[in-house]
């Protein structure tokens, strides 16, 4: 059986993670620009899943480094909340993660995303989900 | 005489009263409870029957109280306002009195979420202070809470509890005064371990003259084990167990013996404090030790007898 190649979405803050993401090219990963962690809503994460993602990662600025006020902290909390939803749905909370990344640190971005991607590979497709 | 119960006679004749506590069973056999009562028959003046103590379902206090009356013993029927509204509270008072119960002890009751049925609805139609007043009005004015008349008069000796160890401390004595105003005639205290705080409380009580208006009985519970002491210390709101007490128990070879010894000493100590008119021994799950405690305190036997 061929190895499963999951599709993954990264929701990246335009002030940090997205600038790093732009410098990378990771197969199977789609980086989506968000204006700030504070602007992220629970529904955006769920939508990513509903539109085919098998894993989502939210990446915002480093601690204490939000361009606005605590957008990164808020994003982290929202991720924690949606993890709860995913758990309740039987999708599993491990398909969602949060990481802080600086604008100039594509290495860390790559590392974090790759790590998550490997996990998704191991997990395989979302159970019950009809592959589009 | 308000009820003419043995307890009332003992107290009103100026004797230092002794009562014991009995917890009814969690099944239909009241046997062990009655055995405990028999066992302490010559050592106590009356028997408190707890009312779903710690919010755990048990044989109703009225049922056990009536059984004691049948045996010629004087029950103190506890009534929490947690599980009954004013209709049922008054009905139970009538029922108890009709069957010879004379002492009614009004308590608020531990919150239902802390007991055996944490999903239960708490009633709290009236509070314990209001219940005292209701009984007083039934007895003295011959009226129910609604103002309707009783068809036959009620005799009742009204009891309550006070807790010197709860907060706000500075309000506790005023709260006691309020209960006296509401109609309480005798009170038992929460389990005493902190003598310093107790003395301060009693000083204030005596300064206000409350000990002249209401019989105050000291609540004593012997400690059986270090674990139990620690549990009460940390988890039971409104009980203070000083570290020295725990240390003393810890240091003892025979914990049970030491626990009993401390209880005996505590009773001897409270007899020295102005204002106390009796002792209430709550030997929870250790009822068989009540006679021993009473004997060892000294000077408490024989219990007065009345015809």
């Amino acid at each position, binding site marked *: 059986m061929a190895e499963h190649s999951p599709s993954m979405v990264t929701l990246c803050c335009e002030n940090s993670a997205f600038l790093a993401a732009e410098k990378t090219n990771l197969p199977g990963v789609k980086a989506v620009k968000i204006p700030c962690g504070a602007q992220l*809503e*629970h*529904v955006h994460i*769920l*939508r990513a*899943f*509903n539109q085919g993602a098998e894993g989502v990662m939210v990446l915002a600025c480093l601690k204490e480094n939000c361009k606005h006020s605590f957008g990164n902290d808020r994003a982290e909390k929202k991720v924690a909340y949606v993890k709860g*939803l995913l758990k*309740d*749905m*039987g*999708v599993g909370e491990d398909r969602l993660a949060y990481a802080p990344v600086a604008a100039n640190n594509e290495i860390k971005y790559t590392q974090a995303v790759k790590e998550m991607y490997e996990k998704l590979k191991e997990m395989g497709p*979302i*159970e*019950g*989900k*009809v592959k589009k | 005489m308000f009820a003419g119960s043995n307890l009332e006679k003992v107290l009103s004749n100026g004797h230092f009263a002794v009562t014991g506590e009995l917890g009814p069973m969690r099944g239909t056999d009241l046997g062990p409870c009655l055995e405990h009562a028999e066992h302490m028959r010559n050592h106590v003046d009356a028997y408190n029957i707890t009312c779903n103590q710690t919010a755990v379902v048990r044989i109703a206090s009225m049922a056990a109280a009536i059984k004691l009356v049948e045996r010629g013993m004087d029950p103190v029927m506890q009534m929490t306002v*947690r599980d009954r509204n*004013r209709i049922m509270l008054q009905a139970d008072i009538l029922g108890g009195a009709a069957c010879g119960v004379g002492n009614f002890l009004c308590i*608020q*009751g*531990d*919150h239902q*979420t*802390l007991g055996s049925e944490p999903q239960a609805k*708490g009633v*709290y*139609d*009236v*509070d*314990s*202070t*209001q219940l005292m*007043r*209701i009984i007083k009005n039934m007895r003295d004015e011959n009226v129910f*809470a609604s103002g309707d008349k009783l068809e036959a008069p009620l005799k009742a000796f009204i009891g309550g*509890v*006070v*807790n010197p*160890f*709860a*907060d*706000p401390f500075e*309000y506790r004595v*005023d*709260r006691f*005064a*309020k209960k006296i*105003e*509401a109609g309480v005639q005798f009170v038992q205290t*929460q389990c005493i371990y902190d003598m310093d705080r107790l003395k301060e409380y009693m000083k204030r009580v005596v300064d206000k003259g409350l000990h002249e208006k209401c019989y105050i009985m000291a609540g004593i519970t012997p400690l059986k084990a270090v674990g139990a002491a620690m549990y009460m210390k940390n988890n039971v*709101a*409104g009980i203070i167990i000083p570290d020295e007490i725990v240390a003393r128990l810890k240091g003892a070879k025979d914990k049970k013996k030491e626990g009993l010894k401390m209880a005996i000493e505590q009773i001897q100590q409270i007899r020295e404090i102005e204002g106390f008119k009796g002792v209430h021994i709550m030997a929870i799950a250790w009822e068989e030790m009540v006679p021993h405690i009473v004997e060892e305190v000294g000077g408490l036997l024989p219990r007065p007898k009345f015809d």
Partner: protein
Amino acid sequence: MIIGERKPLEEVFNRTDSFKKICVLGCETCVAVCLAGGDKEAQETAEAIKMHREQTNNPVEIKASSIQRQCEYEFIDEVMEELKEYDVILSLACGVGVQTMATKVPEMFILPGLNTSFLGYPLEQGVWMENCKACGDCVLDRTYGICPVTRCSKSMMNGPCGGSSEGICEVSKDTECGWALIYDRLKALGKLEYMDEIIPPKNWSTSFHGGPRKIVREDVKIVRGE
């Protein structure tokens, strides 16, 4: 305001599983402010149901929408026709909204997506506190602004009970003793004598214990021809 909390997803899924066309309808008043049943939450819930349905291979047509208030007919009117296209409405309003919807659109299935928790206020962002039981006979004048019916776990009128310890209620270490609060407040206001007054048994017939309540005010009723 009315404070609510989302029902567990599993319960929502179980209740809605048999319907093919679902409208998740938020309410933009109280429950939106307490972040439980507004437009955002409606969208989120719809998305979650969609995801669950895909997983269980039980496709659904679902839409999230919201109106200003589900507890008033005139706001429901605005979306009435549109609602009728769905098999079921999962209402994220409080119990009042759900029932108003059910009365207004009697031919439709209306399901609650929230548990209506209590009447309260936001203590701080993310923390809500109950402080009124709508007992119909306010006693706040006696206690100068702290409700014994609501803030005392045993609704005592003459508290505090013996379980009050260092300002904390016996029920839980996270619950303040309402009567300790009242005492402190009366003390600060120089009104401690209020603590000495025996408050008589409360008249509960004005609360739910008198049966479901209704208020009729002739002065504001609209009479025909007026």
